[in-house]
């Protein structure tokens, strides 16, 4: 068995190496690109060989991957999902008709094939599937404990090859650094809020309860009323607080699947038929603009 681990971020490399060692015995090769490439030396003691590519252009990564794939003939290609990892590996999968599974929750290797479990139907269901190797398996983040970095192995530098897509600019997103995944109480805001200023109702409630504010995808990604690290859902953050209060959120599967770990879910929505009420413990059918000021006032009174 030979495993090739592909990673853009150092933490993902360390988790990927752990995944490879958990899944199978045999040789392990690591390809680090972009931000993780600076750590190539530091990681090299954990694997048989490290390939390193400074670029994070997925086309360059794909060019490099093809060469490494031809040279090493790995049985299993592993990683943790990130956008550039998905991008470059989907091209490798296309070029060699390799099965590829993303957002994998668990996997095992048995006689020439990989069996794995992953969410489907926007995580409303899960599927257990089997594919022959060679195959690509990308795990969800934070499933494997990261290995401790260890230097001292072989490092091979790769070059970009010819790329047709050129980077002409890059800008950092405005992130707040809020760690919703660690919050005990989360107030979630959705399109029921009419304008950005109105979110102060949610912030007031969260502050009174000692919680954090997160939002649905349209609020964070489209309207940009919240920083993107406050985006809750299967393409944002997965949360499991003691209490999740969803306000003006309809209950789309792509949002709700990521909050199912919450102990108690409260929904405030003015539409009594909103799907969220079937996925909540307690529902309040009300206009948030009328209900929230009253709720805030009551909590204030009790706190004294």
């Amino acid at each position, binding site marked *: 068995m030979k495993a090739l681990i592909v990673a853009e971020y150092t933490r993902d490399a360390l988790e990927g190496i752990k995944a490879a060692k958990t899944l199978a015995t045999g040789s392990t090769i690591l390809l680090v690109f972009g931000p993780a490439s600076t750590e190539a030396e530091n990681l090299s003691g954990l694997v048989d060989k490290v390939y390193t590519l400074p670029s994070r252009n997925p086309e360059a990564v794909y060019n490099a991957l093809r060469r490494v794939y031809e040279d090493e003939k790995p049985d299993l290609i592993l990683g943790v999902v990130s956008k550039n990892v998905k991008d470059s590996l989907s091209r*490798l999968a*296309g070029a060699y*008709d*390799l099965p*590829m599974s*993303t957002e994998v929750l668990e996997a095992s290797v048995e006689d020439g094939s990989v069996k794995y479990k992953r969410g489907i139907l926007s995580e409303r269901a899960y599927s257990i*599937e089997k*594919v022959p190797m060679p195959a690509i398996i990308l795990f969800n983040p934070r499933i494997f404990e990261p290995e401790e970095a260890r230097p001292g192995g072989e490092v091979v530098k790769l070059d970009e090859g010819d790329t047709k897509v050129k980077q002409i600019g890059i800008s950092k997103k405005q992130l707040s650094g809020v760690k919703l995944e660690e919050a005990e109480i989360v107030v979630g805001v959705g399109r029921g809020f009419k304008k950005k200023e109105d979110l102060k109702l949610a912030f007031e409630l969260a502050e009174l309860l000692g919680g954090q504010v997160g939002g649905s995808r349209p609020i964070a990604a489209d309207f940009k009323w919240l920083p993107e690290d406050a985006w809750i859902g299967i393409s944002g953050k997965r949360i499991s607080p003691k209490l999740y209060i969803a306000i003006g959120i309809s209950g789309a599967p792509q949002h709700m699947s990521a909050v199912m770990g919450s102990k108690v879910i409260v929904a405030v929505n003015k539409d009594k038929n909103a799907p969220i009420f079937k*996925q909540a413990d307690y529902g309040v059918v009300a206009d948030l603009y009328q209900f929230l000021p009253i709720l805030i006032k*009551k909590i204030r009174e009790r706190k004294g």
Partner: protein
Amino acid sequence: MGDIVVLLKAALNPEMVRSKPDGTLDQDAIPLKLSDIDRNAVEEAAKLKQKLGGKVIGIMVLTVGPMAKREKDLKMAVQEALAKGVDEAIVVADDRLTPGDQVQTAKIIAEVIRNSGINPSIILASEATIDETTGQIPGRVAAKLGLPYISFARSIEVADGKIIAERDLEEELEKVEAELPVVVSVTQEINQPRPPTLIQIRRAARKPQKRLGADDVKQAIGTKRVILERRIVTINRKQQIIEGSNLEEIADKLIEILEKEGVIKL
């Protein structure tokens, strides 16, 4: 401007999951719909056409059978795309191709593009579907056709045979540039799909549709994935609506319940 190709999936609708009494997924009972973000891809195609001309060709490969049960949903999904701006649809549907995995689907799409006299300037797809959510089909198709690929595009601009796109990464927005032809996957934020007008809906019925079967894509027959088991995630929530004669009373009740649950301390 050459052809504008849009990849469209009739996906299992996650808002209508159905299971059997033993908790296994009753897939045949789950309807299909045009995958959400494919609508954004269609909208973007329509905008490009308006600006640059060309023909918008939609390609849809049925991946879940049985055909007999899927005809109606498939037709609806195609109609929707045609009403929203696709000029011509190519649908590949055959029980010999279902259930299809991504290896097979990408092969079929590449074969259709190569063999149907299509001359793509741009191939648009979505970042991910609502059922499989793998985000891998566009990358696979790009590699098969030897085309450059721009993933997770939050905005695109096409002019003078070139595309400039903004890629949405975890912590950055990356601006990239490439010459056409190119494969692009778009995010949900790229546009606001407009509902079709009555005239568009009426015209859709008359737009050309081509049906292909397994014999038309012989090279692509065969899958690698075996599905062993599919189960629904059970949702066990109390689903209790808090009633009261006014909002004050409801607020009081809610606070008391949450204190009793031990999730807030005031």
